[in-house]
């Protein structure tokens, strides 16, 4: 029941926030903040009480029984982490837009909360139809967030985002239906229930196509080069909160989909695909890095770093071993935090000097040292400095993928050097050097500190005590690798 509550709270909160705005803007801000805090604390309490079982919570009621569609939610370690992350970032989403958003505040928060609701739904649902349902639901409000409160080129960005994700999503719908009918012809009962579909015996030829259908949606969302071009536009045009949620959560739904659906549902096919997928990942890492290095628009730059970092995710997922998988989960979380923070920084800077062009910046360290330190920390995070969460993620991913495919891993690791190049470039252009103009450059306000300090604490905590996270997802991952670890990959796991 609590699972439904998670989503319901957000939705109702959104509506209330919308209504409230008609008499006071700050009211709707507070309402959405409170909503998220409530959800967050709920999630945390669930986490505290979660036992070592694979499935912590389950909930299911029939929805469209004629099609075997049920409103079924379930919570395991992975979803739990993602859920906590969602609410956690959501809070900052509200905080960063506290001053930024001044018009149509109510509608903004409505959209914000509904995006989060959709995302939570995606992370929770265990019914493929419902999954697709939420998958689409989270896009509409996001579309509005970009399209209404975005920057100069918002309409183009919003269109691109919407069409890309929709197109790929529809392909996934086809694949889902294909799976449905395969299962129906096998077992006679048509169902969209994840657990029942899990064991489905699919002829390899079919399963290739079906997997590609799923893959389409996820790698566009992730995004994997060459399906990434919607991302820089969407990220750079969205309002800060939008970018935060895009980078922090929407991309993660893609990764989540890979872990939850692609690999378990189509083991053979994905084993077959693995080398190519890993290759794509590596290409993404390097390509994204080189593009990031060239950008002058701060948000665009950070957007491309996401492309690069998400390369590690697909690399790890298709390495098929626990280390890599743990790394991937870690990467999902840490990347969400570090990149989110960087976008927040960009937003903070934009509020002050009204540009995202890093060539017009420089020497802010002298004026805003605190901001400098904060940025430094997250820049270091994004280049994978040990002691910060991202290092754990990337190290695990690489050490895992090394077991599967050393050659590709070498190239992936070159991405770390390129990451150093672009990350330090941010630092250089924005905070080092001299600043030409004499505009006032106030340091972080209390509210802004409230945003960044928790993020810093979290990223360091994740860097030094990742075991909490690791243990949370462990049951789920163990399960997965007990179910199916493709023999083709298993052999080169080193001497035990």
């Amino acid at each position, binding site marked *: 029941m609590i699972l439904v509550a998670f989503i319901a709270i957000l939705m109702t909160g959104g509506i209330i926030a919308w209504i409230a705005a008609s008499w006071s803007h700050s009211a709707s801000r507070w309402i959405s903040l409170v909503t998220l805090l409530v959800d967050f604390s709920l999630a945390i309490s669930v986490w505290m009480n979660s036992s070592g079982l694979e499935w912590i919570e389950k909930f299911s009621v029939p929805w469209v029984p004629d099609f075997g569609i049920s409103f079924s939610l379930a919570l395991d370690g992975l979803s739990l982490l993602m859920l906590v992350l969602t609410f956690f970032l959501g809070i900052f989403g509200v905080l960063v837009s506290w001053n930024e958003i001044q018009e149509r505040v109510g509608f903004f928060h409505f959209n914000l909360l509904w995006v989060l609701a959709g995302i939570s739904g995606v992370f929770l649902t265990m019914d493929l139809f419902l999954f697709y349902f939420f998958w689409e639901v989270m896009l509409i409000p996001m579309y509005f967030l970009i399209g209404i409160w975005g920057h100069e080129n918002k309409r183009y960005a919003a269109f691109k985002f919407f069409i890309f994700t929709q197109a790929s999503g529809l392909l996934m719908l086809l694949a889902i239906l294909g799976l449905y009918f395969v299962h129906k012809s096998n077992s006679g009962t048509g169902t969209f229930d994840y657990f029942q579909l899990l064991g489905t015996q699919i002829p390899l030829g079919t399963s290739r196509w079906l997997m590609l259908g799923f893959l389409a949606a996820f790698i566009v969302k992730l995004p994997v080069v060459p399906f990434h*071009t919607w991302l820089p536009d969407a990220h750079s045009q969205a309002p800060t909160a939008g970018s935060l949620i895009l980078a922090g959560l929407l991309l993660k739904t893609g990764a989540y989909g890979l872990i939850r659906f692609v690999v378990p549902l189509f083991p053979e096919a994905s084993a077959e695909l693995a080398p190519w997928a890993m290759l794509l990942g590596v290409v993404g890492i390097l390509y994204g890095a080189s593009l990031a290095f060239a950008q002058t628009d701060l948000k665009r730059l950070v957007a491309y770093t996401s492309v690069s970092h998400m390369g590690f995710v697909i690399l790890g997922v298709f390495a098929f071993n626990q280390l890599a998988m743990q790394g991937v989960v870690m990467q999902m979380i840490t990347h969400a935090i570090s990149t989110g923070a960087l976008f927040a920084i960009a937003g903070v800077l934009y509020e002050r000097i009204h540009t995202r062009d890093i060539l017009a910046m420089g020497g802010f*360290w002298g004026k805003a*040292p605190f901001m400098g330190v904060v940025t430094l920390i997250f820049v270091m995070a994004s280049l994978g*400095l040990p002691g910060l969460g991202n290092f754990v993620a990337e190290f695990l991913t690489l050490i895992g993928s*090394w077991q599967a495919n050393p050659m590709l891993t070498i190239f992936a*690791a070159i991405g770390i050097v390129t990451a*150093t190049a672009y990350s*330090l470039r941010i630092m250089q252009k924005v*905070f080092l050097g001299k600043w030409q103009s004499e505009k006032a450059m106030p340091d972080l306000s209390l509210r802004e500190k409230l945003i960044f300090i928790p993020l810093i604490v979290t990223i360091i905590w994740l860097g030094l005590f990742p075991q909490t996270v690791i243990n949370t997802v462990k049951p789920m991952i163990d399960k997965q690798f007990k179910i199916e670890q493709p023999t083709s990959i298993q052999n080169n796991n080193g001497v*035990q």
Partner: protein
Amino acid sequence: MSLWLIPALPLLGAFVLIVFGQQLPKRLIPIIGSGSVGLSAALTFALGYRFISSSASSFHIKAWQWMDINGFSPAVAFHLDALSLVFIFVITFVGFLIHVYSAEFMVHDDGYARFFAYLNLFVCSMLTLVLADNFVLMYLGWEGVGLCSYLLIGFWYAEEKNGYAARKAFIVTRVGDISLAFGLFMLFQQFHTLNIQEVAAQAAQHWTVGSETALIISLLLLGGAVGKSAQLPLQTWLPDAMAGPSPVSALIHAATMVTAGVYLIARTHVIFELAPDALMIVGIIGAVTLVLAGFAALTQFDLKRVLAYSTISQIGYMFLALGVSAWSAAIFHFMIHAFFKALLFLAAGAVIESLHHEHDMFKMGGLKNKLPVVYWTFLIGAGSLAALPLITGGFYSKDQILWLSLAGEHGHIWFFLAALVGAFVTSVYTFRMMFLTFFGKENTPVGHVPGKGMNIPLIVLAILTTVGGFIELPHTFGHVTFFSDFLKPILPAVTMQEEMESFEWLIQLVAALVALSGVGVAYYFFIYKPDQADELKSSAADLHSFWLSGWGFDKLYDKLVVQPYVYLSNVNKNDVIDKLYESVVTVANWLNRILAYTQSGILRWYIMGIVIGGILLMALALI
């Protein structure tokens, strides 16, 4: 067991300074900064005493389990043995002295608190590096020192070029780091552990001498070492790193961080022992580097750059020592080098500051009366660097390497010759620097004279430099082997080629002569006949500029790597792949325009449409 306090204290200091740096009163800052390091230095002494007196071969303490995923379980745990004890002694004690020095040196800088914060952070990460009981934690320290070096090189961030130098340092070392990472990956794949001791044990079991994997892994590790220790081919970052304040150069780019590579190889000597070819390569790298860097140092005019190149060259000696598996010799030279190079840098810093940040030696001169303390200490340091016989620590440490490079079991005549040439060049450039700076006529008026805060560390270091040498004396006189005995449990003594012992005195004699002759040459060119030097310079201008640019490595890498990468990424700034999708849109719009013509609004068109449709339907019958 207070082992964990040693790295923790500087960390605490750094934390305090970062968070409250703005608010703190200025005189409190150095107290916190140097105090934290001083405390851990004291702890080190206490611990060192306990360690030596106790029979235990190592102290071990585990703070917490870092990660644990089936088999992969690095902990945040510290491991103290003789080797790491030597290192933490140098780090904390020399570090402490440098902190004290900086307290005065940096006092007028508005980034005072920031400076000490970084410095403390550095000390912490360096300590973690050498105390880590597993490779992952070591890697943490390894990257941490990289970060601090980046921050401190770019400390004066307003200068564009400082930032550039800082980035260069970080990126170049990062190249080495990933090679190290690969080494770790392979080790894990082999042994399913990254605990240093276990790895060493397992390696000894599983691998035979000269095994393939051992070679690959040790080469990968070497890659890491080469990056951090500024050896060929990744040495190019160190000279530029001199952009940082002098204490930084002293602590990071002379005494401690750059020797991390030496530590790494010494730490994993078991693996290297199993791969003689790798050892050979280490030796060659060392030999080549020390010669090249030496010649580069000859031509520099920036005081600090001379020292930088000399650092590279001295570390080359250490690598050479490692290469001939003269482990303790390498470590011994590391320690002595830490003393005198720190001393030299600090002194140089004092000089530069007193001449209002003048770096060019040719604009200096005649300082020996103006800055007596600096002069004398610098002289001692220089002597040690040039390895003047008998009185200087540098002589004993370097002499040992010279000797073993020839007489060690892996020794080789070419190694020896390279080392010898290096020694000669070293003493030449050292005293060139000496004479240009302190002798001759005064070119630049002296500004403020360093006070106690800066002098005391200099003096202490000078003393250390001198006496440090006497804890390890060759057979020929005294034959004190305190240091090598101390390290023996960790680092096996080098086995000599037989029928060599008899020559040792000869070698020492040669070394001494070479050093002295170097001084002589320097005297001839820079005091006796300065114009000769200029003639020589002009006669071989190209060679001079070539050496000045450090054998043109920078240009090479710029052409080979940097420019292509920058070019490519700038060309593709707007992401060609996007064009693909745009073209799809274009096609759709084009189709739309075509089809829009059919909607002409004219009735008979539409009728025609219907008719054609009907005909097409009929036509289907023919299919």
